[in-house]
């Protein structure tokens, strides 16, 4: 039992949910999947605002974009027929590595992004696909890039309502290293490329669990432009990641170990991309 919780709200609209949070931000928390809230066990939490009542749990297509409700579970997202049609096995396979089946049935896409967790495989993959977010804050709705969400000041906490992913023909792959199959990542790497006539026209290279939150490595992305997609490409990716990786140490791994792992994971992801493009 989370002993200090005194009130449990089920708002019917996004606006109502945000107002409830603003009324007592210090003692309130949004509940989406619930895994983080339950595990925090924080005595600070006195008011739970359950977002599932908002019914933001569908995946739809709008012109050239996929729009995902923030309370869609990770498992529903990875198995959604629309996601499989538009992104092949990328999300299906990558998100099978997120926690366990039970956790994926509880954790939501929005709830995986919102706490800005360093190890989030969901955030790493979505960053690599160039995903955007629809968020609701004091000034109403606005659309921001996922990377910009991570850069928001600590006090600015808009409510994520949708995740927006472009269907733009990029090819993506994900690799993760963790101690057990459902442990959090010691390091994770997601790479997307836009192939054109056998070369990389543009790339997104993301490393997560550095241990800070996932980020794109633009130096590596720029170096990959116009690189031929051949047997040598994956080892070039590996070297670039090894030389440019930034991160730190924690109880899971040292910086040096992470740098090595990230480069190996990047090479594996690049191998997958090479096979897909060919």
């Amino acid at each position: 039992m989370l002993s200090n919780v005194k009130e449990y709200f089920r708002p019917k609209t996004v606006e109502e949910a945000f107002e409830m949070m603003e009324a007592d931000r210090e003692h309130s928390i949004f509940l989406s999947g619930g895994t983080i809230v339950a595990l925090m066990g924080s005595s600070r939490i006195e008011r739970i605002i359950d977002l599932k009542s908002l019914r933001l749990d569908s995946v739809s297509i709008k012109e050239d974009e996929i729009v995902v409700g923030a309370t869609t579970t990770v498992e529903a997202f990875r198995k959604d027929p629309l996601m499989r049609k538009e992104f092949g096995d990328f999300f299906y396979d990558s998100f099978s590595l997120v926690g366990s089946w039970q956790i994926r049935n509880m954790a939501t896409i929005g709830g995986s992004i919102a706490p800005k967790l360093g190890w989030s495989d969901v955030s790493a993959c979505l960053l690599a696909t160039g995903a955007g977010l629809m968020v609701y804050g004091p000034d109403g709705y606005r659309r921001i890039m996922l990377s910009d969400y991570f850069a928001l000041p600590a006090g600015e906490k808009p409510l994520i309502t949708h995740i927006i992913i472009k269907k733009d023909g990029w090819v993506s792959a994900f690799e993760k290293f963790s101690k057990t199959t459902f442990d959090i990542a010691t390091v994770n790497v997601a790479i997307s490329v836009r192939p054109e006539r056998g070369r990389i026209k543009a790339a997104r290279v993301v490393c997560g669990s550095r241990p800070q939150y996932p980020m794109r490595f633009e130096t590596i992305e720029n170096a990959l432009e116009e690189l031929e997609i051949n047997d040598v490409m994956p080892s070039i990716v590996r070297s670039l990641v090894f030389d440019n990786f930034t991160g730190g140490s924690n109880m899971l791994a040292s910086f040096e170990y992470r740098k090595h792992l990230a480069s190996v994971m990047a090479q594996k992801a690049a191998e997958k991309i090479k096979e897909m493009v060919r």
Partner: protein
Amino acid sequence: MKITLNVNGNLHEINIDPGDYLLEILRDLGYKSVRRSCHSASCGTCTVLVNGKPILSCSTFAASVDGQTIETVEGLSQGEKLHPIQEAILEEGAAQCGYCIPGIVLTGEALLRENPEPSDDDIKLALNGNVCRCTGYESQNRAIKKAAEAMRGDDYE
């Protein structure tokens, strides 16, 4: 606050505290197959099915499943007749101390409803959140496969 839970077909209208976890409520209601172990969403022992999907009752607020359908192991057997997964676990020697078994049975049941003919990899992926420190998992994987065969058979009701 008052919530309603449909547990194994039995309707319960109960008063809870807003911070209560589903695990505690189910045990208070008498569903003792639902067990606490790690209390950190890491072991799968507390698994129950909510609307047919396996979730961890130790990390689920009871208020969040108000009005939903919950299944525990108590609801699987029919009188003296065990569920095919339970039978297979016995036959394959897939339970030793037995503490984790309710979670494994329910996860296996959810898998076989979704995929009546799972591969070895499907079973491993489904069960990877159910930790067992006795059996080494191989016998449990065999049991799920054996139960799948039995449940696909004509004689299964």
